[in-house]
């Protein structure tokens, strides 16, 4: 099915889910872009800027699908919504922290995104299946990059291990929010459009738990997400948006 053949009752739930996917990618991309010029070595500076651009590219695909469904415009969504209107999870808006924190967030997110994409490739909603197939190739590289770092930090020096563990302890409950369903998700799952998030979480845990453990890290015991609604934001989001939206809002009529 596509925009034209979609059950009208599913339009709002689908629009909500697409916006959540897009906002997560957009904000994670923006956070990663904050490393540009500041990464620990030149090669990683280029890598993280590249990654930031890729995540924003994925965001623009999801915003595009949202636009095809609702008539929304990506630039309007990104630059002219306030924090209360964003539907990212708190994980993606957290300040970038140290290198271990950034890479741990990226690793947990990449692993989740790969799990998502594997399922979304088979979505009954064709525009989603097409995007997932396109994004997955690139995401496989992201996962390879972030997982390689986690292993080397976890098994590296006393300090790198400590920083990596601290990041994991801090991030785990935030990462779990990636698997909290939106109110309309169950209808989408029933229609074969998006995956069941409970099952997705267990696939994700099956992937990350053994990897973290063999990387010398202890997986935190929390089982509850840091927040259960994507309408609950930390003050970090407004701070991020103030910077990200500043130029666009100075002259809303400007042609780019």
């Amino acid at each position, binding site marked *: 099915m596509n925009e034209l053949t979609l059950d009208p009752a599913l339009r709002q739930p689908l629009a909500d889910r697409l916006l959540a996917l897009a906002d997560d990618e957009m904000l994670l991309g923006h956070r990663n872009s904050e490393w540009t010029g500041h990464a620990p*070595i*030149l*090669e*990683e500076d*280029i*890598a993280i800027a*590249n990654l930031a651009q*890729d995540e924003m*590219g994925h965001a623009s695909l999801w915003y595009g699908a949202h636009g095809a469904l609702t008539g929304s415009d990506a630039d309007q969504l990104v630059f002219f919504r306030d924090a209360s209107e964003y539907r990212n999870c708190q994980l993606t808006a957290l300040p970038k922290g140290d290198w271990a924190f950034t890479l741990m967030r990226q690793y947990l997110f990449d692993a989740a995104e790969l799990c998502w994409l594997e399922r979304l490739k088979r979505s009954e909603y064709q525009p989603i299946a097409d995007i997932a197939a396109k994004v997955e*190739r*690139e995401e*496989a*590289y992201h996962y*390879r*990059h972030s997982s*390689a770092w986690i292993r*080397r930090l976890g098994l590296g020096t006393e300090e790198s291990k400590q920083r990596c563990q601290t990041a994991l302890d801090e991030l785990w409950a935030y990462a779990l929010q990636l698997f909290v369903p939106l109110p309309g998700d169950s209808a989408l799952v029933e229609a074969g459009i998006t995956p069941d998030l409970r099952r997705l979480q267990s696939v994700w845990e099956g992937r990350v738990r053994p990897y973290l453990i063999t990387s010398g890290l202890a997986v935190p015991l929390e089982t509850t997400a840091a927040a259960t609604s994507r309408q609950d934001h930390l003050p970090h989001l407004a701070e991020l948006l103030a910077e990200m939206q500043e130029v666009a809002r100075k002259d809303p009529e400007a*042609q*780019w």
Partner: protein
Amino acid sequence: MSDTQWPTYEVFIQDRPERPYRNAGSVHAVDPEMAVLNARTVFVRRPACHSLWVVPAASILARTAEELEDSLPDVTDENVPEETYHVFRKTNQRRGITYVDQAGEVEASSPEAALRAALEAFPERPVYVWWVFQASAITATGEEDIDSLFAPAREKTYRQQSQYRTTL
């Protein structure tokens, strides 16, 4: 102060199947796997790439034509089994062409012996710089890496200079 710089790896790119590899530059990395990822990041974002090699810079024997005029490298006469060495050379001094290209392979029992063999096996001149290294020093990407490491770059036309939008 101790040196905290990571080891250097030379990066070689094959842009299409069956084409010779060409040195693209170097990256720093803690190990070969990270070197492959860094090489991809630094050198394959825009240009086409089919396969990529990284080789520890420390395992490459490099000599300029001038150095070879003075003396050929000494070959120690040890009873070591032969193995395959790759030979790269710089045959052009045109502006912009700074790097070495793949010439072929020789069998030898040491880098020095490989260089001597290369001088005979590839008689075309001029050659400005010679590089030889063991085949076993290479970490290479495989067919399975093309999709995730190289293919997406082809679609990123916004990275081409011709796509940059400017306003007056």
